[in-house]
């Protein structure tokens, strides 16, 4: 008898193990109505802003939701690897947060639901910045992802250095002195001469990359062909000049040295977007060793070219069976003006709804920027942003361009033709179907 029990127990154990294997992936997606529990709206995000916005705002304003919201946060560098294999299957999340570098990949994938069918979103889409909607629209004209923020970029510089070394008293004078790339270069040379090479105009050549990237006339790929825009050749030459003449510290982008420069006295300025001010510049302005801070000494100007960098779009997967609920969430996060006003006031984030921006932009005075109104300054640049240059290939090809063309050429390791050939070969290797000639 005992043995029979044992056998039965083991059979049950094995069955449980197998069942757990088979069903493990299925938990937590929208259709888990079984067991009498609440439905679950699964949200995948790479940024902790998702959790903050949902728990501190959405759930407080909607306390009686008949379903749960489950937020899964994955680091940006693993986000796509985890999402790609299950997108299009029943295990896919209902709502996905997508970063600008890879948003187009999903917008063009055909796996996101058309948002224009949801009145909650469309009823107040008009005040949303055009480029944000364009990025969220795929080549078939379907609007599949919307964003709460716009991310115009700027050039942040040190006021004391501008006064001392360049004799430039106001942001307007500085803007005039760096209004195009020639003037930017000339000012960099002046700065070097005035300080005997102790102060660099910029920390890294990546600070030249993003404005050039944003002002291209074509995206990386058009009709299956790799396009290398004229402005990228100009960028390569400019970067080489900056490195060879010692006008940049030449630190790798986003490296320790790059961030250390923000609290030191040898970097004049940084090219950063809206969120760069709050997430990169402010936290790094204080020197960890000496406790000295550069806060209050920074000013912002547009710089040589208008551009944008980053941003987070939100979409609904086609496999979701809680699409209405998902649309309510997206509507709240991206077009609800009450929420966007609160969010902008609480975090200083630049939102994409121009009604909100216009209502609040004149009340800002950022102490970090010596009382400058950064919100109004960013608002002026939004209309200059172009969305058509953003393609689904950007994340990979940007990296390949910096690694194989821009960096080696600027450091004088290879000549221009070799750099371009290496870059083309790398693109061909990553995308065998793209024609590179």
């Amino acid at each position, binding site marked *: 008898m005992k*043995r029979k029990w044992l*056998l039965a127990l*083991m059979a049950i154990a*094995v069955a449980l*193990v*197998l069942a757990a*294997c088979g069903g493990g992936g299925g938990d937590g997606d929208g259709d888990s109505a079984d067991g009498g529990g609440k439905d679950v709206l699964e949200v995948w995000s790479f940024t902790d802003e998702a959790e903050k916005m949902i728990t501190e705002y959405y759930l407080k304003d909607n306390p009686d939701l008949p379903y749960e919201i489950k937020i899964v946060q994955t680091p940006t560098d693993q986000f*796509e*690897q985890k999402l*790609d294999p299950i997108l*299009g299957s029943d295990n896919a999340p209902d709502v996905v947060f997508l970063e600008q570098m890879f948003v187009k990949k999903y917008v063009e*994938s*055909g*796996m996101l639901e058309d948002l224009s069918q949801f009145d909650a979103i469309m009823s107040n889409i008009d005040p949303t910045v055009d480029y944000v909607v364009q990025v969220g629209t795929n080549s078939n004209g379907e609007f599949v992802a919307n964003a709460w923020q716009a991310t115009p970029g700027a050039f942040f510089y040190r006021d004391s250095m501008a006064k001392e070394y360049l004799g430039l008293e106001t942001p307007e004078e500085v803007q005039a002195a760096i209004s195009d790339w020639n003037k930017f270069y000339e000012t960099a040379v002046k700065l070097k001469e005035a300080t005997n090479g102790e102060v660099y105009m910029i920390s890294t050549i990546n600070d030249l990359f993003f404005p050039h990237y944003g002002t291209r006339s074509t995206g990386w790929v058009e009709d299956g062909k790799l396009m290398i825009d004229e402005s990228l050749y100009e960028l390569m030459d400019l970067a080489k000049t900056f490195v060879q003449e010692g006008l940049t*510290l*030449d*630190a*790798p982008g986003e*490296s*320790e*040295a790059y961030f*250390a420069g923000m609290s030191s006295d040898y970097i004049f300025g940084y090219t950063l977007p809206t969120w760069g001010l709050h997430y990169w510049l402010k936290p790094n302005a204080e020197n960890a060793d000496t406790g000295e801070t550069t806060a209050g000494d920074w000013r912002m100007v547009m710089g040589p070219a208008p551009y944008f960098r980053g941003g987070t779009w939100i979409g609904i997967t086609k496999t979701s069976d809680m699409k209405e609920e998902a649309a309510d969430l997206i509507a709240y996060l991206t077009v609800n003006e009450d929420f966007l006003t609160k969010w902008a006031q609480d975090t200083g984030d630049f939102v994409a709804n121009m009604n909100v921006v216009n209502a609040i932009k004149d009340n800002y005075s950022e102490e970090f920027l010596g009382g400058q109104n950064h919100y109004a300054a960013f608002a002026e640049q939004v209309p200059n942003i172009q969305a058509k240059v953003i393609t689904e290939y950007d*994340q*990979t090809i940007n*990296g390949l361009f910096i*690694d194989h063309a821009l*960096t*080696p050429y600027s*450091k004088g*390791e290879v000549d221009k033709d070799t750099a371009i050939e*290496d870059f083309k*070969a*790398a693109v061909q*290797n*990553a*995308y*065998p*179907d*793209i024609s590179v000639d």
Partner: protein
Amino acid sequence: MTTKAVAQPDKGRKKYKFTMYHRYAYLFIAPFFIAFITFNLYPTLYTILLSFTDLKGWATEFNFVGLENYKNIIQNPFFTKSVGNTFILWTVNFIPQIILAFFLAYTFTSRRLNMRGTEFFKTVFYLPNIITAASIAVLYSALFSYPQGPINLFLQDIGLLEKPFDFFRSVPATRLIVSYIQFWMWYGQTTIIIVAAILSIDESLIEAARVDGANDWKIFRHITLPLMKPITLYILITSMIGGLQMFDIPLLLTNGQPDNSVETMMTFIYKQAFTGGRSMNVAATASVMLLIISIILSILVYRVLRDRTEKGS
């Protein structure tokens, strides 16, 4: 009579029960086979299948394309370079590693030196292996960073360098750093295996040699080393397979740069599968190539070392 008649079938039932009892064994080993088939055998076979298809990007269905992928991959300069890189990185890390490990093992086990605190040193040497590769990559990229990394500042302070040296833009420097990290992470492990192997050698052989007047070195050379061949074979093969799969350090340190000089077979596979056009077919083909290379090399090493052992005995 009646009792006997009852006893007879009872005996048969006992025998039957006993054979049933044997069958439990299958149940006990079943979990391994279930795990092996789902997580090992099936993915391997599926990978081999994918290497003959055109699966990539968002596609969920595939067509068979014959040997197309294999033709392409042999002509792909990025793949051939990654194979070369893998061997350079592995060789430069393995040769010093095995020499140092033998030296350390020899000192730890030497009767004459009779070192104290060997347990402490074994632990210390093993420590780098405990730290996750990701942390080590971050640590080293900070140490050697340009232009204000600690190593650069130190070398300038003591006057070895006049201006900062960009280690991660130099092909030999980057390769050396990657090889060094691999060496530094694994020599402790190798040392411990060799120490264990030396300690397992029959004491009487060594005593006999000592009675015959052999010194420490001669004992090591003529008794210990020959008896170590099986374990050396084991270290060589596991280290080689591990080396062929070198992945995290090169990827996290410089992402394969500069000039793809530390792009290994595994980083090539990873990038093909998860970045760019997400060409699963190319990644699968490269994986099969990696498998073939591993098998060939393992057989080669095994044959070479085994033949010598037979001649010696």
